[in-house]
């Protein structure tokens, strides 16, 4: 008999979004279980550096509507304007709330929260640079994650650390009634039954060979959703951060440029002026990444292989670097062998963030096409954070909007779950056949004697995605990639693991993670092939222009037969006028 626990809410994932939602529920005295495959403060939110964006106007004149304009423009008009209004309107209160919780923000001389300029930020709808990103030195994610975890300790949230979620449990009427999971230490399966389930499992950049992401970013929630027959939205849009350390992948925050750093090529030219005459180094991330890629292609990259550019901040002086960018200095010295006080930091565009994900609405409800339209809520199922696609980031996310997304939609999801629980007080019967299906999937890895290894297949998948789905794409390259990926995925049936211990079996864990990564890689290639335009982070060399007539719409990928569906972008905000799509320059 599989051990079963019953809660009001089960939250999968212990990063910023999961912890924020858990806090809302626990403070409402509901029974909430947070299951996480790592101890919560090991979640990838901890790696966020530069800050969280909110128009507090502590430094420059500012308001939420300007933030909204920048986010809509940054999304290359693919973001849903109702969701973006919701995000920006709630930003200041979300940041003040974090401050009240104890987050150790850096401070201005007048005692208010420190803010710094970030890419794509403007005053007055495209005017002068705004200074909008609130920061705790360059470790804002660490500060945010630890603060939220600490508040959850105070609220007595029940944590199930080092539990790996396997599958959603969904009944015949489409209600989600919890998840199956594996306790990593014992290897034993568990059933978590709950009337509401929130997926907050983060991103999946581990489909790429080089990424800024943690090893744990394997898109587990996305795999669960696909297996449940639900779609993923806008999977062609992956952000390549302009400044990752080559090979290693570690992120060098945009705050480095916000504080005054700039990029140079091997000739020492500040090339960003050629690509974004106004915003220069603080143009949107997709723009800067393409500029670096073009400099490298034109033979103006630095180093023996000419495969990176230099990021310079010496001119800021040792004191400012130590006060404002201590974490960056540490990373640069550890992983690039360069002390930015005296040397430039080598950087190259690196897979960083998944704009797409599990389709959800303003309340964090997962939505899917059904009888009555393209956005029918899946009862009992919620998603928030990077794994969700609301969509506030559209085709390109602005820096500082990701931590904001976590807390705004983590809170919104928590609030709606409370409402749902009041309206649905009676638990529905658990479909045991679904649980058994999940157990069979787990048992598959007990098999011995395969010819393929998990690490081998993962490496091949990562190479395919790196080579065939990078900053620039084309039909021929994507098609070849899809062919290769199909072959790699087919070999999964011949894979086996050689560690059959039940206890803390990380080989088995990596196999289960690979089962999540492969369909995500496939969703990416299929969605990218179909979108015959260039928008935000999706740059098709064979379709260089943005095509609003045909493509002002979201992709929906279903894993059954690689089926694609589409739904329109929501251009109508909640209360203000639409920002009409126009040409996007910086």
């Amino acid at each position: 008999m599989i051990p079963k626990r019953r809660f009001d809410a089960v939250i999968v994932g212990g990063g910023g979004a999961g912890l924020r939602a858990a806090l809302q529920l626990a403070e409402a005295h509901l029974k909430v279980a947070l299951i996480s495959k790592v101890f919560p403060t090991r979640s990838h939110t901890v790696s966020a550096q530069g800050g969280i964006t909110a128009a507090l106007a502590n430094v420059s004149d500012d308001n939420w509507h300007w933030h909204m304009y920048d986010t809509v423009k940054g999304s290359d008009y693919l973001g849903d304007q109702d969701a973006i209004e919701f995000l920006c309107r709630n930003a200041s209160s979300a940041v003040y709330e974090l401050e009240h919780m104890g987050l150790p923000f850096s401070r201005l001389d007048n005692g208010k929260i420190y803010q710094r300029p970030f890419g794509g930020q403007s005053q007055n709808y495209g005017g002068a640079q705004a200074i909008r990103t609130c920061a705790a030195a360059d470790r804002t994610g660490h500060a945010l994650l630890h603060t939220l975890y600490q508040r959850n300790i105070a609220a007595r949230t029940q944590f199930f650390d080092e539990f790996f979620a396997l599958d959603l449990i969904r009944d015949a009427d489409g209600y989600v009634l919890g998840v199956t999971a594996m306790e990593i230490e014992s290897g034993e399966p568990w059933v978590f039954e709950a009337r509401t389930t929130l997926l907050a499992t983060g991103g999946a950049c581990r489909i790429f060979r080089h990424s800024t992401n943690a090893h744990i970013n394997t898109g587990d929630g996305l795999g669960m959703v696909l297996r449940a027959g639900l779609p993923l939205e806008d999977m062609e849009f992956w952000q390549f951060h302009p400044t990752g350390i080559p090979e290693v992948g570690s992120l060098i925050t945009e705050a480095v440029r916000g504080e005054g750093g700039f990029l140079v090529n091997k000739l020492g030219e500040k090339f960003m002026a050629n690509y974004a005459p106004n915003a220069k180094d603080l143009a949107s991330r997709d723009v800067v990444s393409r500029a670096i890629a073009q400099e490298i292609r034109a033979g103006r990259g630095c180093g023996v292989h000419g495969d990176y550019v230099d990021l310079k901040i010496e001119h800021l002086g040792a004191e400012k670097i130590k006060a404002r960018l201590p974490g960056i200095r540490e990373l640069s010295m550890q992983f690039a062998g360069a002390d930015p006080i005296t040397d430039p930091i080598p950087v190259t565009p690196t897979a960083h963030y998944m704009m797409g994900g599990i389709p959800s609405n303003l309340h964090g409800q997962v939505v899917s096409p059904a009888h009555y339209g393209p956005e029918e809520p899946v009862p009992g199922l919620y998603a928030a954070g990077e794994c969700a696609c609301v969509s506030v980031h559209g085709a390109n996310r602005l820096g500082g909007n990701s931590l904001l997304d976590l807390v705004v939609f983590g809170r919104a999801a928590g609030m709606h779950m409370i409402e749902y629980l009041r309206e649905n007080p009676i638990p529905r019967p658990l479909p045991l056949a679904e649980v058994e299906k999940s157990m069979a999937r787990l048992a598959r890895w007990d098999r011995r004697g395969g010819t393929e290894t998990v690490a081998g297949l993962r490496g091949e998948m990562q190479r395919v995605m790196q080579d065939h789905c990078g900053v620039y794409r084309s039909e021929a390259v994507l098609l070849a990639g899809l062919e290769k990926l199909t072959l790699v995925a087919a070999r999964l049936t011949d894979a086996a693991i050689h560690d059959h211990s039940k206890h803390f079996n990380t080989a088995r864990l990596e196999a289960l993670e690979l089962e999540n990564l492969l369909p995500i890689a496939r969703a990416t290639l299929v969605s990218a092939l179909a979108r015959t335009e260039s928008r935000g982070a999706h740059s098709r060399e064979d379709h260089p222009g943005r095509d609003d007539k045909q493509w002002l719409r979201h992709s929906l990928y279903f894993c059954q037969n690689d089926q694609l569906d589409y739904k329109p972008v929501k251009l109508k905000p909640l209360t203000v006028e639409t920002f009409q799509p126009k040409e996007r320059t910086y």
Partner: protein
Amino acid sequence: MRFRIYRYDPESIGKPRMQDYEIEFDPQGKKVLDALIALKDGLDESLTFRRSCREGVCGSDGVNVNGRNVLACVTPLEGLKQPIEIRPLPRLPVIRDLIVDMAQFYQHYRAVKPYLINLEPEPESERLQSPEERAELDGLWECILCGCCTTSCPSFWWNPERFLGPAALLQGYRFIADSRDQASGERLDFLEDPYRLFRCHGIMNCVEVCPKGLNPTQAIGKIKTLLVKRAL
């Protein structure tokens, strides 16, 4: 490169043992974690360790390398004496191979009430805090809970249940030092105990090993100073 790694699986019969490994691996620019992953992927899938961020900020991969507690992901391979000996963090129960049971460590962390306590009504915007007040928190809030310090502390080895250890005490002081916190008295009451706090004898192993360059001994000293001041 040559490695000697601590192996223990509760399922297989027998005691923990040290296993020798040898692989072709260019250590240039690489860290201990890179080698562990290469061993697991290429040679022995059953080798078990925790890892997440691989850049020294999440605190998952604290291990003991050649006798010193470190984060595997930021410890360069170059310059390490071979065979490189890798063991789990000392004094905590081993679950498997390099994975220790951190329950005791987390329990001490929770015991110091590691959250801001302020019962005033919340203002409309942020609570003000001067840069000088905020600077008091530097060197405290950056702790990543990796456990390197606490498991290197002889006082913790002797009294793991009763002495809170450097990591928890550092977090205890992080809230005492926060100008926004109103529970210093209560916090000091809890810490004024021959074991919880006063088992620290200033051995300073914690300072020596902290991968983030923090100074728990100094924070503990400040707590003691506050207790003395309060008593006068």
